[in-house]
C-alpha cells in the first residue's frame, strides 16, 4: 500500500431507491495501487456502491472524485474504471478471445494487436492459449472467472472493481483464485476494489478492509486492525464465531457480566465506556489446568466437542448463567476431559476485546 494522494474519494455518497436508502452517507478514500475490500452481509449495499463508482447508477447525493476531479456526471463508458460482475457478464455469443478482446475492439485497436494482447492476458491468467477460439459458455466456472478478469484487464482500467466474482465457485477453487488475484494485483500494480461477504476472503487479499452494514461503512482498517480491534459487536461477530458477553463497567480495569454477575478483568476500559460487550475469541480461551491460574475464569460443564480438521472446538455450558462458551484448540493442545464433567475455562485480560454498544 502506498500513501500517495487518494485515487478515489467518496464524499458523503447516498443512494436512494424511492423511499429506501441503500447507501447512506459513505466517506472513503482509496489510495493508488491499493487492494481495498468492502465486506458486508447480503443487502448491505455493496453492489449498489460499486455501481455508483463505475457509473452504472448515479448517486442521489454526494461526490465521487477520481484523482481529485468530480466524476459524478461522467457516464460509465467514459470512466477509466471497469467492473467484474457478480454474474461475470461474459458475452455468450463470443468466443473466449472475442470476450477478452472486447474492450480493445471498442477502442478501435487493429485485429492483430488485439489478438496479441488477448494471448498475453491468457498466458498471464494461465488460460490455455488454444482456448482462444473456444466458446465461452463451454468453459468451466473457474475458467470463466479468469476470462472475465482478463477482459477487465484488457480494458486497462485505472481502478478495477470486483463484485463477488468468486462466490459461485467451490471452496478450493476459490482459495486458488484468491491467491492468483492477489498475485495479479501485485504484478499489475493496479488499484483493486473488491466486494465479498466473506471476511476470510477479505483477510487473505486486502491491504485494507471496509465493513458495511445497512448502507454505512462501520469500520475501515487493515485486516490486522479489524481483527484485533473490532469497533463494535457487529464487526466482531462478522469475523466469525466469538464469545460475546453483555457487560457494564465497574472501574477502569473491571466489568461485570449482565447475565451471570461475574466480574472480569480487562486490559483497559474504553474512554467513556459505560456498557457494551466483551468479546473473547474462541482461540484465546484456555481450558482445563492451563486456565486455573488465569485472572478471568468461568466454570461449567463440557457438553460438546467437535473436530474442525486442524482444530478442535469445545462447547462449555457456564454453571452460572448457562452461556455456551466456545473454545478452540489445535490438535496437539487437545483437552482430554469427558463430556458432562466439570471444567474451568479462562482467558487473559489482554486477550479480550471491549466494544461499545
Amino acid at each position, binding site marked *: 500500500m502506498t500513501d500517495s494522494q487518494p485515487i478515489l474519494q467518496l464524499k458523503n455518497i447516498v443512494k436512494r431507491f424511492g423511499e429506501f436508502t441503500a447507501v447512506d452517507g459513505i466517506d472513503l478514500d482509496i489510495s493508488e495501487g491499493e487492494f481495498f475490500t468492502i465486506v458486508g452481509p447480503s443487502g448491505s449495499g455493496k453492489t449498489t456502491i460499486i455501481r455508483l463508482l463505475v457509473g452504472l447508477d448515479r448517486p442521489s447525493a454526494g461526490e465521487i472524485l477520481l484523482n481529485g476531479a468530480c466524476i459524478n456526471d461522467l457516464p460509465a463508458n467514459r470512466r477509466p474504471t471497469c467492473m467484474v*460482475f457478480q454474474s461475470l457478464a461474459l*458475452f455468450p455469443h463470443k468466443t473466449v478471445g472475442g470476450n477478452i478482446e472486447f474492450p480493445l475492439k471498442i477502442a478501435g485497436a487493429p485485429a492483430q494487436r488485439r489478438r496479441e494482447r488477448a494471448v498475453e492476458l491468457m498466458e498471464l491468467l494461465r488460460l490455455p492459449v488454444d482456448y482462444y477460439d473456444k466458446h465461452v459458455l463451454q468453459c468451466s466456472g473457474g475458467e470463466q472467472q479468469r476470462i472475465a478478469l482478463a477482459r477487465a484487464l484488457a480494458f486497462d482500467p485505472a481502478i478495477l472493481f470486483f463484485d463477488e466474482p468468486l462466490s459461485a465457485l467451490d471452496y478450493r477453487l476459490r482459495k486458488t483464485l484468491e491467491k492468483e488475484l492477489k498475485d495479479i494485483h501485485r504484478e499489475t500494480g493496479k488499484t483493486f476494489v473488491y466486494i465479498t461477504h466473506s471476511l476470510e476472503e477479505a483477510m487473505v487479499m486486502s491491504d485494507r478492509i471496509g465493513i458495511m452494514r445497512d448502507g454505512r461503512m462501520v469500520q475501515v482498517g487493515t485486516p490486522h486492525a479489524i481483527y484485533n480491534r473490532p469497533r463494535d459487536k457487529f464487526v466482531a461477530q462478522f469475523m466469525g464465531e466469538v464469545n460475546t458477553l453483555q457487560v457494564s463497567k465497574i472501574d477502569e480495569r473491571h466489568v461485570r457480566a449482565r447475565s451471570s454477575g461475574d466480574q472480569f478483568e480487562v486490559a483497559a476500559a474504553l474512554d467513556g465506556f459505560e456498557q457494551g460487550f466483551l468479546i473473547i475469541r474462541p482461540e484465546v480461551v484456555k481450558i482445563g489446568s492451563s486456565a486455573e491460574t488465569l485472572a478471568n475464569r468461568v466454570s461449567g460443564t463440557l457438553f460438546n466437542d467437535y473436530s474442525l480438521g486442524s482444530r478442535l472446538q469445545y462447547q462449555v455450558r457456564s454453571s452460572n448463567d448457562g452461556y455456551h462458551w466456545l473454545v478452540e484448540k489445535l490438535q496437539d493442545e487437545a483437552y482430554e476431559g469427558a463430556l458432562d464433567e466439570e471444567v474451568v475455562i479462562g482467558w487473559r485480560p489482554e486477550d479480550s476485546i471491549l466494544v461499545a454498544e
Partner: protein
Amino acid sequence: MRSWLRQPGLISALPVAAFLLVGFAGPLLMVIGFSFMPPRTFSLAQAPTLANFTSVVTDSYYVSFFWSVSLAAITVLLLLLVSYPIAYGMAKLFGKWANLVTVLVVIPLLVSENIRLFGWVLFLLKNGILDGSLKALFGLGAPQILYSVPAIVLGLVYVYLPFMLFPLVIGLSLVPDVLKEAAADMGASRLQIFREVELPLAMPGVLIGSMLTFILALGSLAESKILGGQAIVMIADDIESAFTFAQNWPKGSVLSVLLIAFSGALVFFLFRRVDLDRIIGRR
C-alpha cells in the same frame, strides 16, 4: 394385433394424421402433379410435360415474381425499422404498459384483413379521410398514393406488423441488461452496444420475424388488389387468376410450386447457415 396398434399414442394420432393427409398433403401433391400436366387440362391422368415451366419464362410471369420478392423484401426492411423501437420499448421500457400495447396490436387481428384494407382505402382515397381532412384544415391535400406501389407497401407493413413485432419482443427480452452494462463499463457507446451486444443476441427474434413476414408478404394478394388497384400484379394474384378466371390449373400449379420451392429453399438455407442456438450461446 400388431404391437404398434396397441400403442395409445399412435392410435390417438390416427384421425389427425388422416385429416392432414387428406386436407394438407393431398392437395399439395395434387398441385405438384398438375404442374406437370398439359396446359388447360383438368385431369391428372395425362402424359407429364414441362410446358408449364417453360411458359413461366415465355409468358413473363417472372415479372410478378420480381414484384412479390422485391415488395416482400422492402416490407421486411421497413418492418424491422418500425418494429424494433416498439419491441425495445415493450421488452425493456414500458413495464406493465407493454400489455396494453400488446392488446392494441392484437385487437385489429380480430377484424378481417380485407375489411381493414378497405378502411385504408377510405383513409387514403382522393377526398377521403386523410386528403379531405387536410384540405379542410390546411387547404392542402395529401399526396395520392392509393392504387400505387407505396400504398401496397403501406398495407403490407400494416398487416404484417404483429408478425415482426412479437418475435422481436421475445428476441430483445432475451438480451440480459447486465451484458449491456458490462459493455458500457468497458467503454462501448450506445451504437457499439447495439452492434456488438444487443443485435447479435436479439438475432433469433430478428431472423424469425423477418422470415415470417417475408414469406407472408411473398404470398400476399389482398394488399396489391385492394390498395394497389391495377398498379402491379403480384405472384399470388397470377396464381389466383390462373385457377379461377383463366381456368388453367396446370399454370396455377406451376406458379404455386415455384413459390413454395422458393420460400422453402430460403428457409432451409437460412436456418442451415445460421444456428440460432449458437447465436444466443446455448451451445
